[in-house]
Structure formats: structure tokens, C-alpha cells
């Protein structure tokens, strides 16, 4: 075999891009992840546009539904999908092995965030491609703030997903992130707007990452408005969950 002499790392950016590409491809090849990331949100979109559930909110059914579906997509990929994948990678020692390569722990996390964003872009394109023919007309002023808020929401959910994946067994991660996906998706202010929830829930839901992302996206895409409260709440969740993940994440 060739003599071993002086190896060097590839440049940092290249390592992170490679890892992001690799993780995104892994997520897109996984059938269960695809159901969660694409199939279920699309089914929910169609369900909400053919039933009168969202009538009387102040917009066409599809216009009210799409922002919530985008929020659901962010939760699917960043929280449930990434959480489960990371939990099992931790179990199989993949995180430990990769942190001994030049990629390192920081590069690994950066790669995961990149993969979440890449999958999110694909989700937005697919949801938009289905929603436009159904009559989706977002407020043009709200598109850019809406997309920025979606990225912030994905950041908050990534931090939460990594926190769960890094602190409990992968089976528990699987259960927790799937259960919360259903609970928050249905009752957390994501697809069903807050005013349709019981009064008791309304007081708490706007403090949840799900409620703030759902309401914030609806304000942006329906009315072209920036919901300052939603931005603050999502920032708070990102910082708190991120700090907790850094503090308590167990690599093995």
C-alpha cells in the first residue's frame, strides 16, 4: 500500500457542503421520511382545500391552508425527520466516527442544518407546484418575510430535534418527535389557525414554536404582514433549545 505521509483536511466549506449533500440525499432516499416530509403535508393540503374546515378565516381555503402546510413541512424535516435520523446515527456510532474525521462535530451539525434547508427548499417547490393550480395567491409583500420566517422556524425545530435526539434513546426520539408532530400539527396552531382552537389553547399556542410559525406564516402570506411576536418567540426557542442541545447533547 502507498506510504502514509502528511494528510490534510479538505477546506471547511467543502466538508460542510459534502455532509449537507450526503445527509439530504439520505433523507430523500428514506421512504418513511418522504411520507412525513412530502406525502402527508400534500394530503393535508388537499384535505383542507376540499373540506370547509378553514372557511370564514378571511381568505380562500387554499390561501389559508398553504402557510400552515409550509410550517408543517418545516416541522417534518427539521424536527421529526432530522431528530430520528440523528438519534439512530448516535446509536450506531455514526456521530462519533464522523467527529473523528476532518468534518468534526461543528461540521457535522452545520451539514445537518444545510440538509434540512435543502430538503425544505424541495418541499416549498413541491407544495407551491401543487398549490398554485389549486388557486394559491400569496400576498407578494409577504413572500420574502414569509420565507425568512420559515427558515427561522426550521432553525428552531432543528435545535429542538437535535436536543431530543441527543438526550434520549433513539426509540424514545422516534416516539416523542412523531407524537409531537401529530399533536402540534393538529392542535399546536400549525395547520388549524389559532381562532379555531379551544379558548384555553389559544393562550398558550402562540408561545409554542408551532403556533408562532403557523400564525407568522399566515400573517405573511395572507396579509403581507410581519408578526413581530412570532419572530421573537421563534428566536427564543432557537436560542434556548440550541443552548440546551450544546449543553446536554450526548455523542455516544
Amino acid at each position: 500500500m502507498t506510504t502514509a505521509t502528511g494528510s490534510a483536511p479538505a477546506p471547511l466549506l467543502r466538508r460542510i457542503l459534502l455532509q449537507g449533500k450526503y445527509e439530504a440525499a439520505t433523507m430523500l432516499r428514506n421512504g418513511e421520511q418522504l411520507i412525513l416530509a412530502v406525502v402527508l403535508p400534500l394530503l393535508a393540503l388537499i384535505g383542507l382545500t376540499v373540506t370547509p374546515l378553514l372557511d370564514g378565516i378571511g381568505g380562500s381555503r387554499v390561501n389559508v391552508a398553504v402557510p400552515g402546510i409550509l410550517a408543517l413541512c418545516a416541522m417534518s424535516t427539521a424536527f421529526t425527520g432530522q431528530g430520528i435520523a440523528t438519534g439512530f446515527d448516535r446509536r450506531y456510532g455514526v456521530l462519533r466516527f464522523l467527529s473523528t474525521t476532518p468534518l468534526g462535530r461543528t461540521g457535522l451539525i452545520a451539514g445537518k442544518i444545510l440538509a434540512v434547508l435543502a430538503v425544505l427548499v424541495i418541499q416549498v417547490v413541491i407544495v407551491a407546484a401543487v398549490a398554485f393550480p389549486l388557486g394559491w395567491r400569496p400576498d407578494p409583500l409577504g413572500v420574502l418575510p414569509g420565507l425568512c420566517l420559515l427558515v427561522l422556524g426550521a432553525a428552531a425545530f432543528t435545535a429542538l430535534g437535535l436536543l431530543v435526539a441527543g438526550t434520549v434513546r433513539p426509540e424514545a426520539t422516534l416516539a416523542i418527535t412523531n407524537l409531537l408532530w401529530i399533536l402540534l400539527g393538529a392542535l399546536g396552531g400549525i395547520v388549524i389557525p389559532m381562532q379555531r382552537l379551544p379558548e384555553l389553547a389559544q393562550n398558550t399556542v402562540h408561545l409554542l414554536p408551532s403556533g408562532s410559525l403557523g400564525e407568522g406564516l399566515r400573517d405573511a402570506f395572507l396579509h403581507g404582514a410581519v408578526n413581530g411576536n412570532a419572530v421573537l418567540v421563534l428566536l427564543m426557542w432557537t436560542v434556548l433549545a440550541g443552548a440546551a442541545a450544546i449543553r446536554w447533547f450526548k455523542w455516544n
Partner: protein
Amino acid sequence: MRSPKSPVLTIDGLIKDVGPLPTLDGKMLRVVSDVSLVAGRGEVTALLGANGAGKTTTIECAQGLQKRTGGTITLLGADPGTAGAELRARVGVMLQDGGLPPSARPIPLLRHIAGMYRNPRPLDELVQRLGIDSFSRTNVRRLSGGQKQRLALAAALIGNPEVLFLDEPSAGLDPQSRQLVFELISELRDSGMGIILTTHLMDDAQRLADYVYIIDAGRNVAEGTVAQLLQHNMPEAPHKDHVRTLRFEALPGLDFTGVLAAEVEIRETRSGSYAATGALTPEDLAALTAWWAHHGIMPGSLSMEARSLEDVFLDISGREIR
């Protein structure tokens, strides 16, 4: 501690506490209390110890995977606890459990890892050498233990490292894979790589290691070349090079008093099985066979071996199960 010509890894007085653990009323557990070692370039250095002796913890501190509580570690001139990608690029790691994603296929996985390095080893050469081409289209989760180990070794070598850590490399290997892996390790050593091997298998250490550190209960208990360790605790003998264990089976209850030289110990290990250990000379063998001939005894089996590292290890760390 010895001083090799060109050290790649120096560990001095390593301490590692884990916890607080609920099983210890919330107290910390000291899993490594005092481990020191030096590993050189172009050598295989083995860390030998029973399961739970602190080998993996020691090595994971050296790899930067665990934070040490005390002591110093220098790996290729840097502190692995704080060093960055430059150091990691020069060090290859094969973990005990492989650390390979179950859904991955071998070749894309190796190509992905190779991308993290500026000058990776040629993929084809490594794949062919480790026989990975025969299962290149199978997911990691469907590979046999030996195939996984070979893939994990390839993943550790793809970056062309100067230092290679191997944690229990022969676990799950069939005899053919073991031969292949051992040949490769010897070749890499000869090419100048510094190899650090942790194992609880005496045979691995005996076959591969240039220098062995025996670790027990979180501290060093013995060290030396395999030959030096084999002399450990041996009675003073004129021909130390000739320390052997001779085993044979014959009638139970035979009395060999006075047959062999005084410093050779002969005992009946179980009914009818005898073991003579010590500096056996050709004269001893002649005397023994003459004694058999005189008494009309033909042994059912007969074998001779150098004292094994396992014997030394058991001498040092005790025979009781912990």
C-alpha cells in the same frame, strides 16, 4: 515508560471521571485513574486489558472523543482535546462498533468520507485490497460482522493517516478476514504508520504488537515487548529464551519428582493432563521421554508452546472474575 525514536502519541497520567451516576448516589466514577503510554511511528502499540479495564476510554480521550479529567495527551504534537481538522486529518480511527450508517452502501460512503480530505488514498486500491468489491452493492445493515469491520478499516484508512487507532479490530472477523486485516496492519506499520491497537484478545497483541501496555482497573500494570512480558514473573532460569510450556496427556496420578530440572514446574492440571512450565532444555525433554520409555508410557497427546501472553495477563491481573 520507554521512549521510541519517533513518538506519535504520548499519554501521561491520564485521569477520567464519568458521571455523576445514579447507581453511585450521584457520585462520579473514576474509570481511568492513572494511565501513561507512548506509541511510536512505524510500530504497533497494543493496549491490552479485560473488558472494562479503561482501554476504550483512554483511547477515546486520545482521539478527542471524550474530555479527560486530568493528565496530558500529545498526539502528533497537538492536544487532541482542543485540536481541529488539521490534526483529525492525520489520524484514522476504527471504532469498536464501526460507526457506519446502516442505510449506506460501502462505495458511496467511502467516497463521501474521502471527500473530507485533501489527498485521500486511492479508493480502488483500498476497496480491492480489503475485498470490499465483493459486497459493494450491499447496505451496511446487511453486511456480516467481518465485512463491516473491513469497511470500517477502509473508512479509517481512506484519509491516508499517519496514526491509526484500532479498537478491537478482529472482533467478528472470520479467519480469512483476520489474516487479511493482520497482513495489512503489518504492512502499514512497515510503511511508517503509528498504530495503536486496543484489544482484550491476547492473541491479537501477541501476533501484531511491537510493544504492549497492560491496563487493569484504570491503571498501567505492566508493559514491554511481547518477549519481555513473557518473561514476567518467571523463576530465575539460565536459558530465559527457552521458556516453554509442555503439555501432555497420560495416566492420572503420575509422580515426576526429580525427572526434570528443579526450576521447571510440572503439575497435573486436571486428571491425566500435565503441564511443565519453565526453562525447558533439550536434556529435560530427553529425560522426560526416557522416563516414559522406562515406564512404558505413551502420551495420548503432546504439545509444546512458549508461555502465552494470556498466562502473563492472568498472572498480573488475577484469575478471579470481576
